[in-house]
């Protein structure tokens, strides 16, 4: 899978950018704060339809413009696809695939797949469970784009159920009780499907993650992953029953996949509390690398790899080792300090204020 051509109009600091991208390693160089991440963010937008940094649409559109456009030409196994995204801070974003407007944005998923490594990845270990859940959910969708519907169905059922819980204001009459039971049924069905996908992804990732850690850290350590769903033993339906009183009082759904976690341990100890900062960074990179390899194995084509300022986080030897251990495919690597010694880029882009030039 390769992004061959990228056009940006009024995206972040760029008024207009027209880039042809080669296969292999493309280095995106320039001083800090000049907009290297903005370029990678725009590429990722074509795959995720959102900012990988969690930025809202209006932050992505250049100040003063009323819309921004990201266009990309992707080739995979001889097939060319054109993805066009129009971002409107004050309206609905539009997405076109091969000039056809998509009824549902989920129809796009899979046209471009990306794996992103960024300094924020440390949050995978440090932050709360939601970062780990969305890591898993994105992996599930990368493995099979159709599974995005399962997550969407669960999230919608959850929002409906929370709205109902809030509207009951703690008092459940017969009619509301019956409606709540309907949403319980919907939540349970969608929730169990969602968790089946997540646990399957974890079990596929597990055999790859210790090797990935070794490739990044240069040390043999055992990394273990375990999907944690406290409700699973009794089932979601029974668990919802048990917390009903609490839920009515607080007006929010208290158990289910939206509160699950991915537990990570290093050499048998919880990585979140017991691993050093350096080890946590290697685990985060290892998780990304393992998921990248898994998607490559499963889909037969490596996703486009976006390495955002990762080399500055590692010593040169480890950076070079990480790059050497990547499966072949297209890589965009941003760096303020240049490439690690011994690594040759196939293309070098220099980011200057408001523009990007090939050197």
């Amino acid at each position, binding site marked *: 899978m390769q992004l061959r051509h990228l056009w940006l109009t009024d995206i972040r600091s760029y008024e207009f950018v027209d880039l042809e991208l080669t296969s292999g390693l493309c280095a995106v160089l320039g001083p800090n704060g000049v907009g290297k991440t903005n370029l990678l963010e725009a590429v990722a937008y074509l795959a995720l339809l959102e900012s990988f940094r969690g930025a809202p649409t209006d932050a992505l559109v250049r100040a003063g413009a009323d819309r921004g456009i990201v266009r990309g030409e992707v080739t995979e196994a001889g097939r060319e696809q054109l993805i066009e995204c129009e971002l409107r801070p004050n309206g609905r974003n539009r997405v076109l695939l091969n000039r056809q407007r998509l009824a549902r944005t989920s129809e796009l998923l899979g046209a471009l797949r990306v794996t992103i490594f960024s300094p924020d990845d440390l949050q995978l270990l440090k932050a709360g469970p939601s970062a780990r859940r969305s890591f898993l959910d994105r992996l599930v969708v990368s493995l099979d784009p159709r599974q995005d*519907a399962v997550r969407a169905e669960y999230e919608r059922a959850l929002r*409906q*159920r929370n709205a109902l819980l809030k509207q009951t204001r703690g008092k459940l009459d017969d009619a509301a009780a*019956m*409606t709540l039971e309907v949403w319980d049924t919907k939540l349970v069905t969608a929730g169990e499907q969602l968790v089946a996908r997540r646990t399957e992804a974890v079990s596929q990732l597990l055999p790859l993650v210790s090797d990935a850690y070794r490739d990044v850290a240069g040390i043999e350590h055992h990394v273990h992953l375990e999907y944690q769903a406290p409700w699973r033993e009794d089932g979601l339906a029974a668990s919802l029953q048990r917390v009903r009183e609490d839920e009515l009082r607080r007006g929010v759904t208290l158990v289910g996949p939206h509160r699950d976690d991915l537990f990570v341990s290093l050499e048998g100890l919880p990585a979140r509390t017991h691993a050093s900062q350096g080890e946590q960074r290697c685990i985060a990179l290892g998780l990304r690398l393992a998921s990248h390899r898994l998607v490559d194995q499963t889909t037969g084509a490596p996703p486009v790899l976006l390495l955002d300022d990762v080399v500055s986080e590692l010593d040169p030897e480890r950076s070079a080792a990480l790059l050497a251990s990547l499966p072949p495919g297209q890589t965009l690597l941003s760096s303020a300090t240049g490439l690690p010694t011994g690594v040759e880029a196939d293309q070098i882009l220099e980011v200057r204020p408001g523009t990007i030039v090939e050197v």
Partner: protein
Amino acid sequence: MATAYAAAVQELIDCLGRLPGVGPKSAQRIAYHLLKVDATEANRLARAITEVKDKVGFCTACFNIAEGELCMVCADTRRDAHVLCVVEEPRDVVAIERTREFKGRYHVLQGAIDHLQGVGPDQLRVRELVRRVGTDEVTEVILCTNPNLEGEATALYLSRLLGDVPGLTVSRIASGLPVGGDLEYADELTLGRALEGRRVVESENKEH
């Protein structure tokens, strides 16, 4: 921002902007368009709106669109009063009528359960449905709500609500319709087949 338009134009833009699916920009565009077209064309639209509100209301039996007390279907004595097809909106009646497969009558809920929009069973024509099922000679109810989350939840709710009525068969339109879609976008053949392949759901209460 101060009002940039004459009061009458602003009023028109505001009214248009309250219509479903019309954003502020479209409201402006339509208002300009109406200013430009000749008077007969604009008056025709105004008259159509007045007329529809004067003459057309909802059927007192099934809540479909009706000119007068009863809708076309309810007024037709040849229609089978034993079978009720429950739909979300009047446009779904049109879609099912197009299949020519259904000979019974309808019940229009005027929406689906959607708490995010503040719509629960009380905001729908559910009470009226229960009353009809209890008093009329209804022996079968076919749940034809949309194949999306809210439509499925509404069907599940109704199947539980009506599951205990003695002598009543409750069925759900067969899957095979595009998931997440609306009935009105299904083609006649698919919709006709889905109606024919409906499945009885009255066992729902027993597993409960």
